[in-house]
């Protein structure tokens, strides 16, 4: 059974999505919703054993499944997760469940296709996180763009077509170079697409440098890192609430995961040589994008910029490793930050969605005094705003703190610049919160607001539990990733020069 868990995590949502799609037009919208919920719940349930039966002291892949897929190219259907990827499979299934609930009555047009797109995308993303074969990873990595493109383009806001095409082309640009890099490595390893073989072979520095460029474009666009981040605010603003939640919570993590799985272990010497560039770009993201977030007038844009800034922390945490970081704080902190950001950003986008469904505006200026009419909502929103600013006891604090601790050990100035996020993050988040939630009731729209219903309460409550739980007991997460991080670090510390 355990060798098929990952296959189930991939195929249960996809098959469920196809069944939902088969319900057809909006006459059967009710059936489509129920089926989608069942599919999402099942999809989540099959990922839980990944956590409970995970062997924390095992550094390599677990729950492996291997069979030949395309022998002509030596591409295998090889699945497996380690401490780096296991959480993201679960987080993805979890987010998909929330998205299905979040879109329950909000989406009224082409319901079956909407739900199906999310379910299918969820399966594809799980595939990308659990691929042990580079070409299998690529297939999933690319294929998920199709549902994402449709989600943004069909159910998005006014300027959705522009955003959808931009999103697609930006990410495709990166991944095409990745394809060439993979094929090159295929020949260097003697005709193998196994990621483990890629990590093993010796490569001269010049080749590693070029590979790093390819990896950088593929994954930096997805993360997104400064300066290839410009698609994200557009995509977030135009995407429907569910799309934004998945985009922020999961697909961005796929980029960061790519750095961890491919860029660092395959080209460690190039990372040592040129890693400072990534650190520099990460710090720019933290500081500059943090400032950009401060001046936004659109709530979704603000949270989108905040995501970029937070992801800067993640790439910073990874690449400090190559600057001689003595401890695992950087990488582990970055991983914790990724998971935490998954919860917090999903929650923030959901909160904005709740308000948008009622007022049909994302402009901060159109709100004010929401706390008077939606007290329960205001309480939840406060928790998530605090988590986004990195308040202790929330999940947002743990990751940032660990990365900053790691940074102090490497270079004081890294830490000093990174720590500015505690000021900027708090400024833009809390200032937005103040303008939207507090104060006098600003206009008639706000005066007519109804507080959250049971469905919205459920989504927010689940996310609140996750945010607090992770903040209070991060050990539940770090204990399972520790050995894998150690393995990764020992890989990166070794020179691969021939």
């Amino acid at each position: 059974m355990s060798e098929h868990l990952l296959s189930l995590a991939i195929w249960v949502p996809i098959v469920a999505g196809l069944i939902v799609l088969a319900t057809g037009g909006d006459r059967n919208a009710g059936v489509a919703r129920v089926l989608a919920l069942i599919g999402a719940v099942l999809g989540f349930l099959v990922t839980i054993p990944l956590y409970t039966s995970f062997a924390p002291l095992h550094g390599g892949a677990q729950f492996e499944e291997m069979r030949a897929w395309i022998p002509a190219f030596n591409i295998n259907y090889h699945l497996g997760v380690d401490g780096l990827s296991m959480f993201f499979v679960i987080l993805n299934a979890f987010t998909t469940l929330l998205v299905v609930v979040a879109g329950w009555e909000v989406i009224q047009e082409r319901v079956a296709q909407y739900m199906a797109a999310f379910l299918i995308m969820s399966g594809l993303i799980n595939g990308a996180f659990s691929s042990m074969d580079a070409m299998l990873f690529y297939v999933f990595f690319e294929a998920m763009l199709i549902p994402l493109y449709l989600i943004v383009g069909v159910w998005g806001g006014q300027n959705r077509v522009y955003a959808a095409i931009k999103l697609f082309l930006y990410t495709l640009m990166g991944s095409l170079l990745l394809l060439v890099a993979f094929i090159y490595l295929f020949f260097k390893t003697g005709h193998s697409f196994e990621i483990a073989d890629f990590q093993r072979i010796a490569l001269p520095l010049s080749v590693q440098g070029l590979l790093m460029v390819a990896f950088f474009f593929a994954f930096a666009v997805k993360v997104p890192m400064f300066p290839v981040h410009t698609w994200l605010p557009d995509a977030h603003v135009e995407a429907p609430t569910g799309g934004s939640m998945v985009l922020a919570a999961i697909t961005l993590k796929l980029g960061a995961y790519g750095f961890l799985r491919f860029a660092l272990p395959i080209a460690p010497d190039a990372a040592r040589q040129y890693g400072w560039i990534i650190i520099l770009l990460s710090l720019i993201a933290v500081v500059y994008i943090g400032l950009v977030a401060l001046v936004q007038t659109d709530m979704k844009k603000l949270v989108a910029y905040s995501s970029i800034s937070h992801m800067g922390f993640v790439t910073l945490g990874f690449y400090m490793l190559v600057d001689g970081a003595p401890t695992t704080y950087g990488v582990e902190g970055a991983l914790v930050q990724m998971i935490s950001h998954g919860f917090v950003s999903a929650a923030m986008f959901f909160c904005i969605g709740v308000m948008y469904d009622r007022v049909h505006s994302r402009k901060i200026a159109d709100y004010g005094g929401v706390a008077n009419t939606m007290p329960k909502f205001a309480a939840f929103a406060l928790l998530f705003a605090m988590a986004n600013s990195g308040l202790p006891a929330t999940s947002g604090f743990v990751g940032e703190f660990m990365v900053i601790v790691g940074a102090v050990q490497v270079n004081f100035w890294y830490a000093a610049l990174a720590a500015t996020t505690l000021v900027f993050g708090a400024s833009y988040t809390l200032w937005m919160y103040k303008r939207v939630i507090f104060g006098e009731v600003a206009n008639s729209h706000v005066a007519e607001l109804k507080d959250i219903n049971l469905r919205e309460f459920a989504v927010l409550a689940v996310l609140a539990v996750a945010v607090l739980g992770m903040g209070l007991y991060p050990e539940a997460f770090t204990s399972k990733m520790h050995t894998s991080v150690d393995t990764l670090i020992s890989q990166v510390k070794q020179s691969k020069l021939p």
Partner: protein
Amino acid sequence: MTLASLNLVAALPEIWLLCATSAILLIDLFLKDEQRDITYALSLLALVGAAVFTIEGYSAAPRAAFSGMFVADAMSDVLKVGMYAAVGLMLAYSRSYAADRQIYKGELFTLSLFALLGMMVMASATNLLTLYVGLELLSLSLYALVALPRDNKVATEAAMKYFVLGALASGMLLYGMSMIYGATGSLNVHEIAQKVASGSANATLLVFGLVFIVTGIGFKLGNVPFHMWVPDVYQGSPTAVTLLIGSAPKLAAFAFVIRLLVQALPSLQAQWQGMLIVLAVLSIGIGNVVAIAQTNLKRMLAYSTISHMGFLLLGILSGSLQGYSASMFYAIVYALMSVAGFGVVLLMSRQGFEAERLADLKGLAQRSPWFAWMMLFVMFSMAGIPVFSGFFAKLAVIQAVVADDKLIWLAVVAVLFSLVGAFYYLRVVKLMFMDEPLDASPIAVKFDMRVLLSINCLAILVLGLMPQSLLKLCYESVKTSLGML
């Protein structure tokens, strides 16, 4: 010449098709317009018969006929089956389209079948003369097919353009062939290969001949800078004929290139590789960039064809067995996608209305969701997005190119231009899924076409999920046909 050296059995599919087509030509004379379905049925029967002969006669070992002027080998057999399928689908898809436009006549069927015969001869020719005869039979049939709606100015103009440029290309090709003959004293591809390898042939003459031959190939494949006819012919032809031009002949052209360059002139690989690199880069670049500016769907697909033919060359120019089989896989997958793409255009056309503007696709997802999804498969497959078969076709040719360290730049150029290409495929998906329909009436489709088009499009997906068997088939057949063991 003895009867044994004729070995007519090897050419049985061609002989059958010739007889059947001639019979159809005669029978059709006695049929009234409303009885044309009989011609249609007979034509399909002829295709089925040819397929049976090809599959029955299939064996891995090459079987020569006509004293070595013709060969039935694994590669030609696989390609021929693909051609039958493409022509059969074309006839089925175009039934109501042709009937609405008064071209549902015997000529449509007999000319299509003669074109098919030409392609089959091309696929099996091992002599420069047979190659040329096959090519001309194909081309002349196609010229006439384009001009089938003879009162239509656009179609007549397209036919004229196609004819003049095609004749020029044939002239180039013949000139090149004559030089090769002058240098080697033979028209048989194997003898030419031996003479060239022995070094006794005049190198200057050979290279000159090669330049003309590559030019001729460039014309026929529609590679930049010899591509000018492609958009005009694709746009001007009745869509049913465009479908034919855009699908099966690409399979024949692949065989044509293999026979001429790989089988006859392998020793000149260093020379033709350079020329093909130029053609491939220009085709992929210009094809993809210019396609963006098109508002006519058929024209856009024409430029997309140009870029795909550039990709096809990538496999061949890599000069490896892997590369040749990758190109063959590419040609088959491309024919499948092309048939499906033009099939959707045919489907949306009705009496007095050609659905050939991009805008006509608007809101297809609301008018007919099933076909919108099918077209989405075609578009993403052409763009090379996994998990559709178009991705594996691109993967195969790029892999063949990257195998040569010196050619990695070529792979990077190719993938970057395919990024440009992704835009216009995405735009089609956008029109279908994200725009409101101009005309909300649902699309009336005949049952047989509905089923066939669905199978056609689903095949694109299934071949992507399970490409192994076709990849293996291509590899094995190229390997045995080229005698590389």
